[in-house]
């Protein structure tokens, strides 16, 4: 493994370029399914690319009195995090032998970076509405990280390994504990993407963009791109953990099953987003620390008992 190859993997496939393109296409799926739910035609296939191009010709406004350096750096933190996460994930899916011990833990941390970047940027912008959004985002993170770790524990207990390369051989979704954990994982994914019913950090109606309110031009474009990449990567993460065995088996059929599982996860997310109202922050915290955590805990216990 020479350094040029690592660099190319990071920049082209399965890192930056691949994840960005796939993420933008996923965000098109999101918008198109939304349009279908609302019985309209929806945007053309390349609309997310047009949007991104537009952000890069706009002026970058920097709020007076804010922490300028952090304000401009924050979008890149999340962007780098999700790119690396996607790289590690896809390397495990494409070539399970080359992964390292504990990469799952690294992955869980990397997937936290976009939310952290958003919070830092919001507080650096010195806008009261953005600060409000940032504090909501932190509360949301505190709420969903606990059940998410429990959810990730289930495949770990079943495979008795914390190496992603060994985890992707199993198919926990076919067991009782795995199915329960997947259900809890779906709720966590919805919150991690901060989409309805957990979009209180942005809150179009009362915070008018919340954490992103002061961003314009290229930094806003990077944020949007990061979110699109998360929308692509998180379902892949769940597919790798819970349907891994279906995906990396020999032949073409397992890949198609994996694609189907991924699409169902994305479509479920979008349909939930379109059919539910926004929760308050306290309701979301109660939801995650109550039912979702209990569900995930039950899944962990079941997995421990071998179901």
């Amino acid at each position, binding site marked *: 493994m020479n350094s040029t190859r690592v660099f190319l993997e990071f920049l082209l496939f399965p890192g930056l370029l691949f994840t960005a393109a796939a993420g933008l296409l996923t965000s098109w799926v999101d918008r198109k399914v939304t349009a279908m739910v609302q019985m309209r035609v929806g945007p053309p296939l390349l609309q997310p690319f047009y949007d991104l191009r537009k952000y890069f010709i706009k002026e970058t*406004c920097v709020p007076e009195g804010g922490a300028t350096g952090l304000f401009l750096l924050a979008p890149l933190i999340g962007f780098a995090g999700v790119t690396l996460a996607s790289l590690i994930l896809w390397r495990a899916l494409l070539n399970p032998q080359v992964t390292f011990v504990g990469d799952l833990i690294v992955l869980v941390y990397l997937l936290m970076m976009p939310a952290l970047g958003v919070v830092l940027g919001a507080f650096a912008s010195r806008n009261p509405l953005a600060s409000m959004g940032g504090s909501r985002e932190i509360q949301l993170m505190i709420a969903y990280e606990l059940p998410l770790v429990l959810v990730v524990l289930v495949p770990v207990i079943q495979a008795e390994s914390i190496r992603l390369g060994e985890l992707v051989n199993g198919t926990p979704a076919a067991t009782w504990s795995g199915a329960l954990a997947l259900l809890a994982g779906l709720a966590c994914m919805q919150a991690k993407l901060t989409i309805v019913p957990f979009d209180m950090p942005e809150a179009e109606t009362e915070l008018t963009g919340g954490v992103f309110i002061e961003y314009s*031009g290229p930094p806003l474009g990077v944020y949007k791109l990061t979110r699109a990449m998360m929308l692509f990567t998180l379902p892949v993460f769940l597919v790798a953990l819970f349907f891994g065995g279906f995906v990396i088996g020999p032949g073409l059929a397992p890949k198609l099953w994996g694609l189907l599982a991924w699409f169902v996860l994305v479509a479920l997310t979008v349909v939930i987003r379109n059919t539910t109202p926004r929760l308050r922050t306290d309701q979301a915290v109660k939801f995650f620390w109550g039912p979702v955590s209990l569900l995930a805990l039950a899944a962990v216990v079941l997995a421990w008992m071998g179901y």
Partner: protein
Amino acid sequence: MGYTVNALTKSLNVFHLGGSACNNCDIEILDALTPRYDLERFGITLVGSIRHADLILLSGIFNKKARLRMLEVLAQAPRPYLVVAIGGCPASGLIFRDSYNFYAAPADYVPIDAFIPGCPPKPEAIISGVVTVIKALREGAMVPKCLGEPDRAGEMAPVPQAEGAA
């Protein structure tokens, strides 16, 4: 210029800046954004923050106090952006022109790119107006005013404490 205009007009984020209007234009603007007209087909979406705006829809006369806020908000818009006036009020003041709180028609002190007449204009008229603006931009018949006069919005931004903070 061609690349900029193309990139801008393919993905317009609409920001609605309504001030001291009778609300009919605001209702028609919301109607234009409903699924019935499905403006997302052309990449047009509604945004809540002026920092995300590409197309700013003005409605109403902006009375003496609202005017200062409007200029402040407009000065925060990232360039290039377009300002489109909805209804007759921004052009002439219409029925509000003799009110005690009327300052001047916004057309006299804001660089407005296009006017969509009507009291209020129908959603079809708003869409047709925006399409006309997009076509004129692509053909090079017009340039966004914010680009032609780089610092105009900034110059006009008033000192907030002088008369507005009371």
